[in-house]
């Protein structure tokens, strides 16, 4: 059911992060192949693979690459988004710690495809061990001459802000500025880091590239659904018997993930709700989990695949409290740049807190819903739209729980 492991097949090996082990396991065989290919041919293969961005947005990777202006003179940058910060998501951490050379090989391939000679890897500041492992792998790759000849890598540690995982916020931070998202247009592929065309890709997305180059885009596409190829890593946490990072096809259902891979619901054993794609995803009720985990499948179910951070709640969970915790997170992490997000995340948090503490007012729930809808789609980046996912779905699907606290 779960099929072949691509990304996680080496997670069990203790020395998997070393160059020697990576080579032993067949690593760095895709890169020589990619180097012999025309950059446009690599992009075509990736388009064929139906690989979609696995950081959260789910945008087709090959299409994104093709936005780099043709014949651009001057630098093009590849930026690796390793600022994994969505609550419930911890899969990139595994890749950085346990298979860093796979990321480096993926970066080499992507850099060739977009004709970039310099890549920046922006690693979440709190990820100390992943950073150590990855920086060590970069050293090895330089020593082994994979890096340094046509592609240089700069490893940059963030200072710890969720918004720096948003691609333009990440670029601002990388440029040495406050991690505020940038106005679009221009999009990063036209004018990104340091004013140059820039492709920002997630760690997991890039780790797929060696497999796509080695085995072909069509093979990869065949592993998934019609509109999304391959497997992906699911960070499963909460009330499950075996919380862990699992790899499976994007065609797996949420039910299979929870019950077959993660061993089912712990606690009182009765599933109440699941967040399928990181904290920004709209919550699903227990009877809504027969959905496939691909981008379009979950979108059709009114939620999103996001970063595939699956948070499972059993019936002992308090949805209002869960929303308050998330609301506090979004209020704390809103960068403060644009008005609707800056002001309403704090306001909504204060309302949820009041409700949980028994000081809620009847109109609070509708105010939260109204404020969420008014603010959605009005901001510079997608942060607030992400926060709206839980604000609206938690209240709409579990309104009686909130009302019970207010009454």
């Amino acid at each position, binding site marked *: 059911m779960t099929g072949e492991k691509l990304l996680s097949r080496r997670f069990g090996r203790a020395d998997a992060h070393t160059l020697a082990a990576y080579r032993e396991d067949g690593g760095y065989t895709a890169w020589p192949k990619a180097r012999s290919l025309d950059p446009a041919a690599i992009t075509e293969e990736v388009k064929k693979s139906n690989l979609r961005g696995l950081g959260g947005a789910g945008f087709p990777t090959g299409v994104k690459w093709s936005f780099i202006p043709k014949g651009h003179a001057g630098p093009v940058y590849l930026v690796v988004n390793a600022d994994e910060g969505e609550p419930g998501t911890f899969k990139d951490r595994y890749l950085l710690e346990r298979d860093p050379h796979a990321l480096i090989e993926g970066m080499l391939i992507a850099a060739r495809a977009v004709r970039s000679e310099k890549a920046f890897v922006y690693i979440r500041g709190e990820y100390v061990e992943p950073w150590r492992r990855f920086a060590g792998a970069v050293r090895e790759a330089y020593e082994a001459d994979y890096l340094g000849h046509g592609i240089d890598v700069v490893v940059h540690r963030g200072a710890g802000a969720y918004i720096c995982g948003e691609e333009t916020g990440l670029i601002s931070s990388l440029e040495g500025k406050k991690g505020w998202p940038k106005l679009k247009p221009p999009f990063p592929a036209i004018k990104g880091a340091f004013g140059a065309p820039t492709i920002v890709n997630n760690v997991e997305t890039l780790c797929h590239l060696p497999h796509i180059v080695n085995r072909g885009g069509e093979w990869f596409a065949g592993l998934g659904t019609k509109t999304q190829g391959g497997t992906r890593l699911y960070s499963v946490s909460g009330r499950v018997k075996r919380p862990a990072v699992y790899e499976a096809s994007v065609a797996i259902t949420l039910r299979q993930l929870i019950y077959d891979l993660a061993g089912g619901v712990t606690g009182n054993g009765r599933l109440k709700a699941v967040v399928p794609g990181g904290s920004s995803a709209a919550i699903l009720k227990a009877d809504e989990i027969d959905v496939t985990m691909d981008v379009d499948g979950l979108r059709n179910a009114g939620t999103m695949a996001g970063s595939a951070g699956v948070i499972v709640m059993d019936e002992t969970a308090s949805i209002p409290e869960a929303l308050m915790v998330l609301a506090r997170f979004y209020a704390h992490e*809103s960068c403060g740049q644009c008005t609707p997000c800056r*002001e309403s995340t*704090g306001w909504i948090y204060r*309302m949820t807190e009041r409700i949980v503490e028994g000081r809620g007012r009847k109109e609070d729930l509708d105010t939260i819903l109204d404020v969420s809808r008014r603010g959605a789609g*009005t901001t510079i980046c997608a942060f607030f739209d992400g926060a709206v996912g839980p604000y609206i779905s938690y209240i709409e699907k579990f309104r009686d729980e909130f009302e019970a606290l207010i009454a």
Partner: protein
Amino acid sequence: MPRLTINGQPVEVAPGTNLIEAARAVGVDIPHYCYHPGLSIAGQCRLCMVDIDKAPRPTVACNTVAAEGMVVMTETPRVLEARRSMMEFHLINHPLDCPVCDQAGECWLQIYYMKHGLYEPRMVDEKVHKPKAVPLGEHVVLDAERCILCSRCVRFCDEVTGTGELGIFHRGDHSEVGLFPGRPLANQYTGNLNDICPVGALTDRDFRFRVRVWYLDSAKSICPGCARGCNIDVHVNHRRPHHNEGRRVARLKPRFNAEVNRWWMCDAGRYGFEFVDDASRLDTPLRRQQGGQEPAGWDEALAAVTDVLASTAPDEIGVIASPRMANEDLFALRRLLGRLGIHRVGFAVPPAAPGDEDALLIRADKNPNTRGAELIGLDGDVVAILKAARDGRLRLLWVFAHDLFASAWPDAPVRAALTSVPTLIWSGTNANATSALAYWVLPAAAWVERDGTFTNFEGRVQRFRTAVAPLGEARPEWDVIGRISEMLGEPVQGTRAEHWFRALAAAVPAFAGLTYQNLGDAGRTIRARALPAQSVLGEVSEGAVAPPGRASDGAPSE
């Protein structure tokens, strides 16, 4: 040139024009806070939402460039709804201190709230509290609670002055503007921060709580602080004279002129108007008596000055004009000197310390009309005049505006020169060490008390207008000089500054064709090349010859 329609009105704009400016071109105001035409686009306030045909939702006008065929609507129901929402968000944490906020009457939070607000507050929780009344540098005070985080002030320091003292710290609704640790707000343009703050967050330490803005009247003027000639508005307080500690001029604000100062002015100019209502102002003519100077009437003073001018040989008269005088005054003086055949004339006096200068607005020459004085032909050697005075070759010395003791020259030879002439006349606005030695002191109206023009360093002739009445009996120099000319037998030259400007335009080729009307509010640049002083003088009057060459910077004793 993209052509588009805004609210059904067709408009053609320059490529790259954003929708706020395109709408402005057809008289449509799109509300905004963070957008300022002199700063980069931030897109933070999210207030300038408009509907664009076929777009799924309203979009910000500031970051949308006008495109061919675009159909823009600024008043659709969903745009109005979006504005109401943004206003609600803006006000969630804004303190309700409107009655005591000194921005009252000039606050765009208030103005837009009245136009677009939601009116029914839904926020019942405690607001986020932030620091209040924090001094930022010499001229700016911050109330962080009132700040709507539009970042105009931050961008100004980053982009206009390039000094980058300000940042926005913390995140979410705890974000606040502040100085980077250990860095003072120390640029030369900090007053502009108060101008560009759209709400009451940054207010002027000099102006705040002195007078409410709705009591102020305004006159278009030119800053006299340096040779740049920044366009300004003079705000005066006629209606509440007991406010503002009796100061009539409440404040100066920059007035947009694309060619001169754009939206800005420097602090030195902005706060340099204290002399207008200073205790040192001269409000009546003074005559030296034993033991000091006593008030005298204008009739007596003018008669005496006319008499001494007429009875002294032209070669024994020296005149030190001032580049602080208006073109009209300088021309009136030139006429008088020509009539009398006085040739010992100059205006350039080096300051004690060289003026600072920068690449933005500030000019080293702290006089507003050096170029005008040159073009009108009053350029001569002041050192030679003072030397002649000290040597006993002058019987009359008339000094305008200068305090020669504040010059680069040593005091002793200056004092020797000033005390060696039997009659020292001094004209100007404020008493100083030079005026204290004068036999006659003729009080002059300050620039805000009269009309006139200055010619800036680029040769731009710009009008300033009366904002307040002259203090006491002070009069513009053109008036004083004109009256003396009349008493010397000249027909009446002019009873208004404008008459003198017409005469100037008729007589001095560089000013040919200029009128107050065609100068307009923005002024006009004349061919900046100065004609030789002699030829100008020749046209003005027969027989007068100005000495060639500029004043030297050397001390008169050398």
